Structure formats: C-alpha cells, structure tokens
C-alpha cells in the first residue's frame, strides 16, 4: 500500500518531465525528416536525410560547432583556474572580506541580456568605451572588440558571468577544508604553494567536477549574449550552434532544417554529457 502512495507522490514530476522530454523531441525528429518551411505551408513531404545534409553543408555549420566547443572550453578553463585562485586568495580573513565576496559574486545575478549590453556598449565600444579610453590613455590604438574579436568578446562576457559562480562554490568548499592538516603541513616546513598544490587543489576536485558539469549545461546553450551583442557575426565568427539553429528557425522560417540542427545540438550535448554525468554522477551522494 505504502509503495503505491509513494509512487503516486512521484508521478506528477516524473510524468511531466517525461512529457516535456519526449513530446517536443519526437516532434523535432519528425520535423527533421520533412520539408517544412513556415513561408510555404502545405508542402510537407517526406525528404529523408535532406535536411541534415542541408544543415551540415551550411557554410556556418562547422564554424558553429567549433565556436560552441571553443566557447565551452575557454570559459571552463578561465572560470575554474581563476575561480580556484581567487577563492584561495580570499579564504583567510582580511579587512572587508565580506564586502569583497559580495562584489565578486555580483555579476552572476546580472541577466545575460544586460551583461551583453553593458560590455558591448560601455566597455568595448571602440570610440566611447572604457577599454578604448584606456588604450588611448596608454597611447595605443583602440580595439574594435566586437568586429575584430567577436568570439573572444563573447567569451569575456560569459566568463565574467560564470566566474562568480565558480568562486561561490569554491569558497564554500574551502571552508570545509581541514585546517589542522594545513597547520601540520606548515609545521613540517611546507610553503604556501605546496599547501595550495597538494592539499587545497585535491580537496577541490569534487567541487571542480560539479562546477564543470553545471557550467557545461548552461554554456552549451549560450544564446542571449550573442543575440544582443554580435548577432552571430561578423559572418559566422561568433555563431554557435544554438544561434545557428535559431537563425534557421525563426529568421529563415525553415523548420525542417532547424529541427535537423536541433538534433545535432542534442547529440553534441549528449556526447559531452555522457562523459560528464559518468564522471560527476559518482561524486553525487544519493
């Protein structure tokens, strides 16, 4: 009897998530095999693999795949490395530590569209931006970030948003580090770097795994930053898969090709997730 009640309590969540996963996904699979353009309704014949061929041979496809992976990899490295360094830096008490913490984590709560617009305009604008002013003051030629280094600009924006998250997690994790162990190591003559390298970093292995997993979920789907700052351009230089598919579906109205692209995104996410879930799943105590 008890079994059935507990199942009943779980049912709404499980059923809803199942529907949420299966219905749209099967529709995507179906759309990807038919000719379906919102501009030409009523011509929805079966076309087999054509949409996939079309999507894969799109000049932007491989650029978008590599941009997606470069964005993911760069932001992961930047946030984890700087996150570990900064959280180790603010681990011990100093004057105003709480305020420093609040300042450091704030960018995480800025919405992506605001993030992109602040950076695009007030920071990176080649004429009136802060960066241009700094370059000029140093006697250098100002850089037009969004035109010349579009992907790097996106990486900077996204890293700025996610570095606080890494810091937040690592700071929390460091508080549970064994101080006695550290003191003992100090007594034995270990210097700061040794303690950091051989005690702190191993202690952070699990939090790092968690940060990598969570960030990956969100970073594979970066969209708003690109949408409001570079619009994927110039050319395809800052287009990732998410943006390329959006472009196919809602700007070119080609549902068939966009669906095929959506399945590629799902495939890519699954390849990445397969390794991550296995690596991190072990670390999550259930």
């Amino acid at each position, binding site marked *: 009897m008890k079994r059935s009640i507990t199942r009943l309590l779980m049912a709404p969540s499980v059923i809803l998530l199942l529907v949420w996963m299966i219905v749209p*996904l099967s529709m995507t699979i179906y759309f990807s095999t038919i000719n379906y353009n919102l501009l030409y309704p009523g011509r929805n014949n079966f076309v087999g693999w054509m949409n996939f061929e079309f999507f894969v041979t799109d000049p932007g496809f491989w650029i978008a795949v590599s941009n997606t992976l470069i964005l993911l990899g760069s932001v992961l490295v930047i946030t984890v490395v700087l996150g570990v360094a900064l959280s180790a830096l603010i681990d011990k008490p100093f004057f105003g530590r709480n305020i420093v913490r609040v300042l450091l984590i704030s960018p995480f709560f800025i919405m992506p569209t605001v993030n992109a617009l602040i950076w695009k305009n007030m920071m990176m604008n080649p004429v009136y931006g802060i960066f241009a002013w700094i370059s000029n003051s140093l006697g250098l030629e100002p850089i037009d970030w969004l035109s010349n280094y579009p992907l790097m600009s996106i990486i900077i924006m996204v890293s700025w948003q996610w570095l606080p998250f890494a810091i937040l997690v690592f700071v929390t994790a460091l508080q549970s580090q064994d101080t006695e162990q550290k003191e003992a190591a100090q007594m034995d003559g270990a210097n700061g770097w040794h303690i950091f390298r051989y005690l702190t970093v191993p202690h952070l292995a699990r939090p790092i795994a968690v940060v990598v997993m969570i960030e990956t979920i969100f970073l594979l789907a970066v969209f*708003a930053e690109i949408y409001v700052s570079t619009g994927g351009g110039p050319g395809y230089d800052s287009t990732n898969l998410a943006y390329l598919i959006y472009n196919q579906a809602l700007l070119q109205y080609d549902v068939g090709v966009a669906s095929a692209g959506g399945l590629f995104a799902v495939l890519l996410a699954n390849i990445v997730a397969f390794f991550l879930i296995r690596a991190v799943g072990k670390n999550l105590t259930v």
Partner: protein
Amino acid sequence: MTLTQQRKLKTILVGLASWAVALLLFFPIFWMFITSFKTELQAISVPPQLFFEPTFENFSIVQERSDYLKHAWNSVVTSFGATILALIIAIPAAYSMAFFPGKKTKDILLWMLSTKMLPAVGVLVPIYILSRDYGLLDSKLGLVIIFTLMNLPIIVWMLFSYFKDLPKEILEAARMDGATPWDEMIKVVLPLSVGGIASTGLLSIVLCWNEAFWSLNLTASEAAPLTAMIASYSSPEGLFWAKLSAASTLACAPIVIFGWFCQKQLVQGLTFGAVK
C-alpha cells in the same frame, strides 16, 4: 622582520590584492549604475566622467518609453508563478524519494538531471509551434509552464537533499502514532523544512528572472519579462547609454540584492547539495 610582522604584511597584501580584483570585476556593474544617473552627453563623454550632477530623468523616460512596470510585473508573475507551481509538484516527489527510497531512486534522480542536459534549442521549434497552436505565444501562462518544467529537476534535487538530512526518528515517532505518509509530509516534514523550501524557491526565482532563451523567443510586447525588454535596447538607433543603464539597473537591482542575501543557499541549490 619578525614572523608576526611578516604575517601581518602578508594579510595586508592579500587584502589589497583581493580588493583590487573585486573592484575590477564589479566595475561594469558600478559603471552601469552611475551611468544611469548621467545625461546622454555625459554618458558618452571622453574621458569618462566619474563626478557629475546626478539626474533621475532616465528612469522616468525608461518607464515612458518601454513601460518598465509592465515588464517588471511580467517578470514577477512568471518567476513567482513558475516557482510556486514547481514547488507544489516537486515537494511530494522529493519527499517520497528521500523517505521511501527504492532501488530505482538514484536512477530517477540522475535521469531528471539529464533532462536539464537536453539543450533548449533542440526543442525550440516544437515548443514554438505548440505555443503558437495553443495560443500560448507571448503569454505569461506559456512562460510559467516552460519555466516550471525547466527548473523542476533542480528543484526536486535540491528538496531531496534537504529532506534527506532531516532526522528520521521524528518520522518514526509520527508513524507510531498512526500517521499516513501524506500526514507525515504535511504535518511533520513540511514544517521542519521551511528553510530548505524557501531557499529552493529563491534559487528558482533567480533562474527564472534571468532566463533569456525562452523569453526572447516566445514573447513579444505583451508578455515580455525584463530580460526581453532590455534586449530591445540593443537596436542601433543611437547611443542611449544613460537610458540603457537606467533600464538595466532597474531590471537587475531586485535580483542582485536578493542574491547578496542568499548566496549560500544558492550554491547548495545549484550544486545539488554536493558542495556544502
């Protein structure tokens, strides 16, 4: 130099370095904030102005031009609506998995997490078409449904890790008195985990408030929350940085302040309790 002096010096240096980095990273937010009190001319002046006579004009212009209050209301309704709905659905599931775990509980939890791995863009087209066909395009209800489903896995996980930490003895005592699982949940577990439920809710609200993919793609003028309203300032119709800053400040201030107060809970939530 003695050892204590050395240590003191080190603390000061660490403090200075930390402050420098913190101010650097916070600078864009600070700059957005003060730019919102400038005139448009001051906003684009070279060299940038740090001291000026503040004006509050931008805020009223933002309200007039893009109806800030309507979009703020949309953000509030969708964030709170989706959060409350998700909590109602998730609490029984998390309770049942935490207190009556079966062989498959761990698998179900990992499967739920894996639905978060499904990139939204993979289902953009069907969701768009379904929303269109059911009249949920550009509607708050549509966003509430999507936000609920989007955050449900995280909410179940987070509640699960809170419930799991409750002392089992209390439940056993209640069971001795003949309470059914349903009674236990309502009368024993819920009152004991108000804190956990509250911080789960906070996390969900933050995630909904800042969600941009679905709100940009599924809403237009009527139901657009603040994330989408801000995007309308990206059009290159001139340099309206002061107004952009004012709109951004208004859009972010509530959630940033909110975030300052519950940073710790947010970590536990986002890491599914794996980092404490």
